[in-house]
């Protein structure tokens, strides 16, 4: 006869006697939750669809370029300096649509009240959310560049020589990606902080991109009826004359491209960021920094 190995479990309420890590744990929790919210983790499958679409959309150009480079290495294909230009719209859409998810629902549903009765300040909360979204945006902008780097290096006849010749691209794309992520994250979260509705915040961010780009285009563009002879390249004068380069600064959509141009030391198309390029680098950089700080 065998003895039964029964066990008794006390299912009554037990006081918590484990460690309490205070404010630092609270900050980490807000950051982790922000990352999970951004990626839709722990949420319904529909919440994961948009982040997946954006990741695919941002990485697709890098994968395509890497594949094409492996097949036709002799061609002069776009490289790291052009990558941010090709995905800038997607990055802006990503920040416009996903960023409100981190701030708006918490205030709309009243969860923010539960945060603030715990060892957490408003600054901790905002910093945690900002850092979470910034980290994911950074991951997004770097992944494509890293794929592109692998593709271009491996498709070169001599990978070692390629890296030796183009090593400067690596710190450049890290630097440009950092600034672009900093800008898109801060702008979209700052706008999201003004409303409790995700749709309004997203529409407002997208609206700012479109309107600022259009206004900058008008103020820095050529007059259509210039001399009645048409505005050929090199002949037309911008509507705002010498001030055109300054008005180029208000083009929010062009900021990401211009940041990339500054870091990679290349000249973009003659509109928007191209016009700003006339200014000394310190001017646009300080303007964007001032906007971000604000």
């Amino acid at each position, binding site marked *: 006869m065998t003895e039964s190995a029964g066990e008794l479990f006390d*299912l009554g*309420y037990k006081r918590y006697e484990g460690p309490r890590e205070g404010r630092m744990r609270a900050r980490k929790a807000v950051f982790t939750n922000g990352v999970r919210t951004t990626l839709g983790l722990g949420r319904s499958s529909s919440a994961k669809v948009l982040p997946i679409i954006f990741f695919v959309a941002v990485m697709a150009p890098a994968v395509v370029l890497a594949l094409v480079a492996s097949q036709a290495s002799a061609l002069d294909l776009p490289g790291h300096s052009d990558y941010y230009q090709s995905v800038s719209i997607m990055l802006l859409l990503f920040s416009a649509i996903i960023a409100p998810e981190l701030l708006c629902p*918490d205030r709309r549903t009243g969860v923010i009240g539960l945060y603030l009765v715990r060892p957490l300040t408003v600054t901790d909360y905002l910093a945690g959310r900002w850092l979470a979204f910034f980290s994911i945006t950074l991951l997004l902008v770097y992944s494509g560049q890293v794929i592109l780097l692998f593709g271009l290096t491996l498709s070169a006849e001599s990978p070692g020589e390629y890296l030796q010749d183009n090593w400067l691209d690596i710190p450049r794309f890290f630097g440009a990606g950092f600034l672009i992520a900093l800008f898109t994250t801060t702008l979209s979260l700052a706008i999201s902080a003004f409303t409790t509705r995700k749709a309004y915040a997203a529409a407002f961010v997208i609206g700012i991109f479109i309107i600022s780009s259009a206004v900058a285009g008008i103020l820095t563009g050529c007059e259509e009826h210039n001399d009645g002879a048409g505005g050929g390249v090199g002949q037309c004068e911008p509507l705002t004359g010498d001030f055109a380069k300054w008005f180029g600064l208000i083009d929010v959509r062009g900021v990401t491209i211009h940041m990339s141009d500054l870091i990679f030391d290349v000249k973009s198309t003659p509109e928007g960021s191209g016009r700003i390029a006339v200014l000394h680098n310190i001017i646009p950089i300080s303007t964007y920094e001032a906007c971000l700080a604000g």
Partner: protein
Amino acid sequence: MPEGDCLPTGITASEFLTHMAQVSGLPPAHAKTRAADILRHVGLDEERYRSIGEYSSGMKQRVKLAQALAHDPVIVLLDEPTVGLDPGGREEMLELIRRTGREFGISIIVSTHLMGDVESTCERIIVLDEGRVKEAGDVSMYTKETQNIFIDVDDKRSELVTALLSRGIEATVEGSSIAVVLENEVQSDGIRDAIVEVDAQLRRMGPRRQQLADIFRDDQK
């Protein structure tokens, strides 16, 4: 535990509670265990992996209480914990609050306008009037038996009041009952005689307990 909405809709109760326990300072592994424990104690064990958005009002109130208990506090403040609940849900919530105080050993402060909730769950009461303490003490002090006798009759209520007054017994109609202020034992016989005299059908007669709501009624007089 706030009175209004404070719950996210797109995540499960388990995920929400684990997160809230971490925001209260608990390490992730402890927070997860603690969340599961608390959800079992508030009766949401089976439902913990469902989205909070699909919960009923009663279940949402339980989640609100659970998030307040997630980090095992010494004291919890509950603001109108039974608001928006049907009678069944309200009784369950009150029982949960009683258990929290009695079995979990957590002190509870309930802020409510529902005196019935206070009578059935609380030991002490503080009545505030425009921010100033108006009354304070044990709930039992405000709910003890009074010298008032309540008489419920099916008919002839006004005749019975007249008969009582003619015997020198102070009687008034309060709602569907007759309230009698008993000044001495002899008056009990007078009540009996008055009922017999008017031949009223007696349904109930007994001493009346004070109610917390009387504190406010006295103020209005």
